[in-house]
């Protein structure tokens, strides 16, 4: 009796175990599985602020123009052709492509005008400044839209026209309802969207919160089968599944095991040797539109002196930072505009200390400081011209230089910046400067630097700079030297302000280019920020699943890739 019961139990256990392990991770040959490190937060395009949310929404809501992967020029997307500018009327006329929303209704100029009016009337934070200068929008017919500008605005093309367009039918009811509430903007951006209607290559099928997000190919996508700027678009697969992983370690294991086809997050140098050895994994290395820099507080001693800032620039060895700290996965920067942004980046700039030996750097910095009136108890260069450990630097008035801190994010947030801070501290101490690198929680660092202006120097970075160089004006214009303003260094230069103001209203790209170059020259001369480096973006995909990834600035994670990758032959298309 007992044996009979035990036998039944064993059979049941066997069946359960078989069923349990039979729940393997199924693979559909025609679905692309992408790993993310954080979950998208919302489907409301007006609230979305984080990169992971944009990775989803950018495939659903589309702008009028996108950037070409090779030339980085604007390419008509929902628009049919490049805009026609009428300088007398200060108007841009755009002809729209024949397209349909994912619910089958036609995409018209009314949707474009509605989007603009919605942003303007609600003052949607992320887009308001890009539409503030639009006086009115006219729609002569269903496929023509004309924007009238209050004043010439250079960012219209790359900023305003890159705004995602929403469907008037879907959003007009939401907007009307929001207007009747006490806080219309809060109601609008907090409205929960369950099934976004877009014109993009994919539509939302299912969002299992905390686990995965499933997009399906949009059969009504305007680009399918079309050649846009020489690129024939798909999508060439049916399903796109985003899976969330808590850490990079686990996501990379999933990639190696074949649970995902692509990990949409930069791979840290520590993983590369292992991934490079594998034949089933392919790594893509691309440049990033980024700026990592050392900033100085120009409002107070000691960094209110440009000679000191230049001397600091000479002591910093960017080659060391890139080769040792970034392990070669990055490039040195000399301008606040990344070099890959070829049209706007100025190459004719001083390259403080670039290519110099350690000894030469110290001697040049010593010379600069000596000429500016700095003295030492023990100088870094002795009378015979030999390098020695310096002690107790004094300011030009004879006062000892007080201890100063270099604020950096902590190593767990960004090991590169934290380690760079430590190295810079050591290089400056060799010059007799009482420098202290202090890692600080990122939020606190921002509050200290941007909110309170209570700092000496800091190392920060912008990981996703727009291609339009208008941010240079934002970062250094004296009008932005206020709490929460972008001019964190407190840089005041009326010449720069004049150039910056002119650059925003200069509609001729060539003339604007000259202005932007001059702005960069002033920054490189006065050094409120000293550009350090920008890391490369290394991304990993499985070779055996999909091919045809499109590399561009910022990596392979872009709409072109997702419209063009195809399953490899052994899986069938």
């Amino acid at each position, binding site marked *: 009796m007992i044996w009979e019961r035990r036998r039944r139990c064993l059979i049941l256990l066997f069946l359960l175990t078989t069923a349990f392990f039979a729940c393997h991770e199924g693979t559909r040959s025609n*679905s692309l599985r992408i790993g993310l490190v954080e979950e998208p937060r*919302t489907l409301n395009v007006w609230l979305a602020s984080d990169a992971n949310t944009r990775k989803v929404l950018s495939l659903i809501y589309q702008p009028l123009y996108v950037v070409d992967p090779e030339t980085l020029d604007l390419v008509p997307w929902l628009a049919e052709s490049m805009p026609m500018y009428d300088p007398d009327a200060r108007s841009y006329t755009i002809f729209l492509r024949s397209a349909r929303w994912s619910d089958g209704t036609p995409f018209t100029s009314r949707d474009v005008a509605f989007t603009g009016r919605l942003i303007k009337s609600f003052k949607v*934070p992320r887009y308001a400044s890009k539409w503030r200068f639009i006086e009115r929008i006219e729609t002569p017919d269903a496929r023509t839209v004309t924007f009238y500008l209050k004043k010439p605005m250079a960012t219209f093309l790359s900023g305003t026209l890159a705004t995602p367009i929403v469907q008037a039918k879907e959003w007009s009811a939401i907007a009307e309802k929001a207007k009747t509430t006490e806080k219309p903007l809060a109601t609008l951006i907090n409205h929960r969207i369950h099934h976004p209607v877009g014109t993009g290559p994919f539509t939302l099928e299912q969002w*299992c919160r905390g*686990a995965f997000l499933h997009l399906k190919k949009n059969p009504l996508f305007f680009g399918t089968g079309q050649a846009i700027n020489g690129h024939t678009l798909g999508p060439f697969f049916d399903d796109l*599944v985003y899976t969330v992983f808590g850490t990079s370690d686990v996501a990379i294991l999933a990639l190696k095991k074949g649970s995902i086809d692509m990990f949409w997050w930069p791979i840290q140098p520590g993983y590369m040797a292992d991934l490079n050895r594998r034949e089933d994994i392919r790594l893509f290395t691309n440049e990033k539109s980024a700026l990592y820099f050392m900033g100085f507080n120009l409002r107070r001693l000691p960094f209110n002196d440009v000679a000191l800032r230049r001397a600091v620039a000479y002591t910093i060895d960017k080659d060391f930072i890139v080769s040792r700290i970034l392990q070669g996965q990055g490039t040195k920067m000399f301008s606040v505009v990344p070099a890959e942004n070829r049209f706007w980046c100025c190459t004719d700039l001083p390259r403080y200390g670039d290519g110099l030996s350690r000894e030469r750097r110290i001697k040049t910095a010593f010379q600069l400081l000596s000429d500016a009136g700095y003295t030492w108890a023990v100088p870094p260069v002795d009378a015979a011209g030999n390098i020695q450990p310096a002690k107790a630097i004094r300011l030009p008035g004879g006062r000892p230089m007080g201890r100063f801190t270099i604020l950096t994010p902590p190593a767990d947030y960004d090991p590169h910046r934290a380690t760079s801070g430590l190295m810079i501290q050591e290089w400056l101490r060799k010059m007799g400067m009482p420098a202290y690198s202090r890692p600080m929680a990122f939020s606190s660092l921002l509050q*200290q630097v941007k909110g309170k202006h209570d700092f000496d120097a800091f190392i920060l970075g912008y990981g996703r700079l727009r291609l339009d160089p208008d941010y240079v004006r934002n970062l250094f214009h004296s009008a932005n030297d206020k709490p929460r*303003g972008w001019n964190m260094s407190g840089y005041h230069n009326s010449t720069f302000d004049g150039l910056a103001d002119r650059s925003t209203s200069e509609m001729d790209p060539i003339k604007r280019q000259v202005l932007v170059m001059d702005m960069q020259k002033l920054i490189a001369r006065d050094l409120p920020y000293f550009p350090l480096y920008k890391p490369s973006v290394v991304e990993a995909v499985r070779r055996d699943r999909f091919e045809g990834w499109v590399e561009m600035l910022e990596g392979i994670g872009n709409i072109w890739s997702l419209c063009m990758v195809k399953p490899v032959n052994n899986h069938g298309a």
Partner: protein
Amino acid sequence: MGLRPFVIRRCIEIAVIFFVIMTVLFVLFRLAPGDPVERMVDPSMTPEDAQLLMESMGLDRPVWTQYLYYLKNMATGNMGISFHYGEPVIHILMDRLPNTILLFTSAIILSALLGVFLGKIAAWRRGERTDMLMTVGALFCHTLFLPWLALIMIWFFAYHVGWFPITGMVTPAVWIDPDAGMISKALDVLHHMALPLMTLVLTHFGSYLLIMRSSMLDTLKEDYIITARAKGLTEKTIRDRHAAPNAALPVVTSVGLSLAFSINGGALTETVFTWPGIGRELVFSVSHSDYPLAQAAFLLIAIVVLTANLLVDVLYAYLDPRIRY
């Protein structure tokens, strides 16, 4: 004092404590360094845009006004809207809560069962090699660094051997499949749950084992155990029927308290295993200064713990009238 006045007095005390917790949470998050808006802006946005964002979150108002709104909302059961999700935080928490309860309650119950089972054997074989191995093993497992153990488990069982999925709670392919039934979906969740559960049980059972062993050793000295032996009962019957049930009482108390605390999940476990629970949301909300979400998550934990305390107090007062005085 009668039971009713005692309960009323405890309810008032708990209401006061809850109010204090609410206020402390509000103040702490405002005093903490960091700014919710700074994580949401980029250099293409003007300070005016950032100001609009602040206004939409209600952060432009004086702190006192924010506090009054907070109290008013709490009084009406409105815990606010998350800055990042743009949804009522109660929806987000209620979405995550079942996942946390499923994993952590299962882990606590399994740990307790294993701890009781091994603890009684260790006590029964006191001084023998089995006892030493179990005690040292329990201490060893209890002191393991959980994230490290979790990664090792994932690497070995999920990646190397391939028995289990690599993290998460579900397999998208199963849940996307329109033909997949409820049983296959339930099995899929169990399959994903196995590794985090094993990790949690490994790190938790030790404490229950030690409590059980200690309690069992005391029980074995009781007169009724000697009586049972005198009656000629088998060793197994004495151990399992007479000693173990009585010795397990401290474990039951410990399990009860652990269950109350289990709703806060384990930030580390949930992060490494990508388990979509309260713990991960807590980490996210605090690191991104999402005040409404963080406040609500902590308040939810406070509510459950205070309620559990109240129930225990009332139960004790009912069972032992001396406590009421």
